[in-house]
């Protein structure tokens, strides 16, 4: 494991923090680390800050992430990586669509020209909507507590998609599926970052696989065209035990 000293912990609301540490390793947007909290567990986390002062943004979901957000400046952070196929960042005019904590992995893509659709269940779950330039972001919440009431796709409908060179999407798989279905016949290229149960991070355990591809090594980013050929996308995944389940409706 790589061990680094935490130089800063930035609180982003009630249950989300960004942990910063110096690490002189090239990491590209879309890549992730397997972060280990001894005596708890090891979980995949997107790199939200890819400069020399790295950052990972963690939202408390389970036992391990809940303990991780309690880490303090001066503590050690243990991890391995970077892993995964990064986003192709060459396209200039970017449209960034993030759901919930999915915005963490999209943060490094935000530049002064980027346009964003940021969605969450409720206003306190919105992440990084404030990082876009003035007037460049559309906020959407399930409960209407902030911005448009609805799902990420409702924030997309008013945007002129043909004005962008690439759409970057990260969030729950059903949100990704709804966006893929919406843009299937529209002239906008897109890259999606997927999230599934992941145990090894290095392409051997088969927990995160989709249609024979491993998210951890051949993803987690996939293009629109790649996803269109996958029939497990948005329909089925394996649980921690390897049991096949249908992906539920939200």
């Amino acid at each position: 494991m790589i061990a680094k000293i935490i130089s800063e912990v930035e609180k982003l609301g009630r249950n989300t923090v960004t942990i910063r540490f110096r690490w002189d390793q090239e990491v590209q947007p879309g890549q992730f680390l397997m972060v280990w909290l001894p005596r708890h567990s090891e979980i995949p986390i997107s790199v939200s800050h890819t400069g020399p002062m790295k950052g990972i943004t963690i939202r408390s979901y389970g036992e391990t992430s809940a303990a991780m957000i309690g880490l303090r400046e001066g503590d050690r952070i243990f991890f391995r990586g970077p892993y995964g196929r990064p986003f192709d960042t060459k396209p200039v005019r970017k449209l960034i669509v993030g759901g919930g904590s999915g915005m963490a992995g999209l943060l490094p893509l935000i530049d002064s020209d980027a346009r964003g659709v940021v969605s969450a269940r409720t206003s306190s779950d919105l992440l990084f909507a404030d990082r876009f330039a003035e007037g460049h972001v559309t906020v959407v919440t399930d409960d209407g507590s902030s911005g448009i009431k609805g799902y990420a796709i409702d924030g997309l409908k008013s945007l002129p998609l043909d004005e962008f060179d690439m759409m970057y999407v990260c969030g729950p798989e059903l949100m990704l599926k709804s966006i893929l279905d919406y843009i299937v016949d529209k002239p906008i290229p897109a890259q999606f970052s997927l999230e599934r149960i992941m145990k090894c991070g290095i392409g051997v355990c088969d927990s995160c696989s989709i249609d024979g591809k491993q998210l951890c090594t051949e993803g987690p980013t996939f293009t629109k065209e790649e996803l269109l050929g996958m029939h497990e996308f948005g329909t089925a995944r394996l649980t921690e035990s390897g049991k096949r389940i249908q992906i539920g409706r939200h």
Partner: protein
Amino acid sequence: MVHIDTAIAGIQLSNPMMLASGILDENGYTMLEILKKGAAAVVTKSIGTSERTGYKPPVVVPIQGGLLNAVGLANPGIDNFRDEMKIALSGNRPVFGSIFGATADEFLQLGLKMEEYGATAVELNLSCPHVAGYGTEVGSDPVLVEDIVNTLKSNLKIPVFAKLSPNVTDIVEIAKAAQKADALVLINTVRAMSIDIHARKAVLTNRYGGLSGQAIKNVGVRYVYEVSKETGKEIIGVGGIENAEDLIEYIMAGASAVQIGTALYTQGKDVFSRIAAGLVEFMESEGFNRISEMIGVAVE
């Protein structure tokens, strides 16, 4: 003309390589993908009678020369594995169902289910090194091994492979207890551990795990050689095969076919086609026409 097809327990294989149990073999679509990449057959993840989530991560640690793992026999349970078998079998190549249990009766239930699902053969996991009550704890008791193998042989129509552990004092004694198996699979991982010196703690949640990859290749070759010489059984060699030379070493030590696992991490999915090309090249330059001409040639 060089032919790289081979056979094990009467099952024809288009080349000597199959996917080892425990790597990329939980989802039927992944097994299909591995077959498309050139594996002649796949062995499934080890399946038990009931669903298990396995250990909390870290369950795999990359180390110098291979991987250390203690996944903890995570599996959906045999009743939930029917769909994955069906998907994997749609590749029209052999699919070997790996099973683990604590008693002959559990193995029998699992074996009958695998047979019903269409498995080409079953592989008995008598060697997982990191779960109490299963694997090596079963596979190091010759009386129990004999009971399990004989029970399955007298009740199943499909061939039965016994995968044995290197973590025993005398593997030949266990191999002889498994004499009635159609083939022996040698070896499972070698019990090992890794400590993170900054965390001052074992990295694997289970602390102990099994070592695979290059680091154990010559251990595997030695076991295949020894068991082949002492028992004359058909053998599937496994442990650290990354290139054609490694595969040929196992064949010359007495293996009729081999399994590949950790090399999928170190070499990627093209490892099967790369090894096949290297194998053809070697056979051409050394004047071998068939795999059978190489099996056990080094044994004396």
